[in-house]
């Protein structure tokens, strides 16, 4: 069964337009102009239960808008959403009991009182039975090492500590689906990897479906088996991370250091028929990108060796970062 199913989902906004200057502002006083903006443009996808799906895209691509529609905060302009068998914006109060939401940039805890007080209140809000709550809390406290944080007021917590508490707060009622909007933003590497491990555990143990938006592609590599990539309100890639690498990472990057100065022009001439791109790093070092469909490594290296002595050679594996950049640059995805 699919945990999330989205069909031709669309969201349009009216954005107020301000005229320029003093005269413009005076005119705005009596006559406003609006622009129609399409934030999410007829997207469709489905996420099976138990999957961790990364939802990525540049700022303003429509990620947050989608999350807000999936969590029932916003009502779509058109299209269908089913999450957990519910239509989020219709049976909101019933529906939200089964989901957990973390907005990385906003706290859902009470600022001035001990963390545990917030948790207790959330227990009441979500109507979690006392015993289930205690078990759950103990488990989360142990896994996220919250022990001595529980009695501290939220305002005295570091960002990493706070985020661990936010995650706990979102999971106290054992939601079937967890929505994370930028959960690792601003955290240091150690905390990030702790949180990633934790999310993986939760997913394995309870089969919690997780949808997360992130700018950190390491989150994706560590967590997601599936990636949905958004650009300008449209899905430009939807598929597995491995396939993403296979389909897009079709090339290898070489870093070659020569014994003598070498200009990229000469190398370009040498490999003109192989469509290798060259880029000078410095006088002695060059970077080559070899599309594996049209050329092979031996061939290129063979030709290069005739030109000059090679001091050092490194093959760079494609990483998600480059792939994503590449997809954005070519502007269109393959799967959709």
């Amino acid at each position, binding site marked *: 069964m699919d945990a999330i199913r989205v069909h031709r989902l669309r969201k349009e906004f009216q954005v107020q337009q301000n005229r320029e200057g003093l005269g413009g502002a005076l005119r705005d006083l009596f006559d406003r102009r609006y622009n129609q903006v399409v934030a999410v443009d007829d997207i469709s996808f489905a996420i099976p239960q138990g999957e961790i799906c990364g939802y990525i895209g540049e700022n303003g691509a429509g990620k947050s808008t989608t999350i807000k529609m999936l969590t029932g905060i916003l009502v779509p302009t058109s299209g269908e959403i089913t999450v957990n068998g519910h239509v989020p914006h219709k049976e909101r109060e019933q529906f*939200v009991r089964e989901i957990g939401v973390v907005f990385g940039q906003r706290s859902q805890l009470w600022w001035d009182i001990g963390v545990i007080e917030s948790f207790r209140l959330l227990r009441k*809000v979500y109507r979690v039975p006392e015993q289930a709550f205690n078990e759950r809390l103990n488990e989360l406290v142990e896994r996220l090492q919250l022990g001595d944080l529980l009695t501290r007021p939220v305002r005295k917590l570091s960002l990493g500590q706070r985020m661990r508490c936010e995650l706990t707060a979102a999971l106290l009622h054992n939601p079937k689906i967890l929505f994370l909007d930028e959960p690792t933003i601003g955290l240091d590497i150690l905390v990030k990897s702790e949180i990633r491990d934790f999310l993986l555990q939760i997913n394995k143990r309870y089969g919690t479906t997780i949808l997360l938006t992130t700018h950190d592609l390491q989150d994706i590599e560590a967590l997601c088996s599936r990636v949905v990539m958004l650009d300008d309100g449209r899905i430009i890639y939807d598929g597995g991370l491995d396939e993403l690498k296979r389909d897009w990472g079709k090339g290898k990057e070489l870093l070659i250091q020569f014994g003598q100065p070498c200009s990229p022009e000469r190398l370009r001439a040498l490999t003109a028929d192989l469509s290798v791109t060259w880029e000078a790093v410095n006088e002695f070092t060059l970077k080559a990108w070899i599309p594996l469909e049209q050329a092979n490594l031996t061939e290129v290296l063979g030709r290069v060796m005739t030109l000059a002595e090679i001091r050092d050679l490194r093959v760079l594996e494609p990483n998600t970062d480059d792939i994503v950049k590449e997809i954005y640059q070519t502007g269109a995805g393959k799967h959709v």
Partner: protein
Amino acid sequence: MHYLSLFFDYIKIYMKTKLTYRSDLWIEIVSDLLFQGLNLLFILVVFMHTDLLGDWTRDEMIFIYGYFMVPYGLFTAFFNMWNFTERYIIKGEMDRVLTRPVHNLFQLVLENIDPSSLFGALSGVVIMVYAGTQLGLDWAWYDPLVLVLLVLSSMMVYFGVYVSLIAIGFFTDSQTGILPLVWNLQNYGRYPVDIYNRVIRFSLTWVLPFAFVGVHPASYFLKKGEWQLYAFLTPLMGVAFFLLALWIWNVGVNRYRGAGS
């Protein structure tokens, strides 16, 4: 039942928060009372130069003022959302509220309770008793019940006006400044409306019905013959404005969820 138990949990949270800032709590209470005192001062100053305002005496005015403080104190104890647009719309906390399985307005009310203004209500009762004694008002056995009913109705009028106004935040996130201004206007509800001209009297009775949080219900106890009819209208107005506000609020929430950003 669920909502009632939630209510007490939020009160607990409130108490814990307040106890961390104990000195602030006292400053709040004292400044609240002083504020009320300053308003009373105006009445006293004015009556140093005249015996009657319209056909209302000083003690009658003070009695109205005492009544006015009661629903106001109770209302602000449970409703303290003056910075709603700023906090919930601009800073986006409304999103969090909407991801929780409790009615959104109820959550908002709970998150913003401020029982310290109950002191205002209490001092209102004291003032009423003082002025009532001065006037020699006689109380029937059912009058305390009527008082409770009228106070509840006045609170609903407040709720109606302010929830409707706060819902404006759903339609425009710019600071409208309308709240503090209307808040200024509510103060005219504690003067007899017959001193105003028709337009203002009409507005204070039917548009922004602040006459129903002060002079109208209070006149029931003052036995001001011609005004008692309005006193009986108070519950009706309360219910009407309460329902109107709920409707506007829901339209606003729907619009927020439709427009968003």
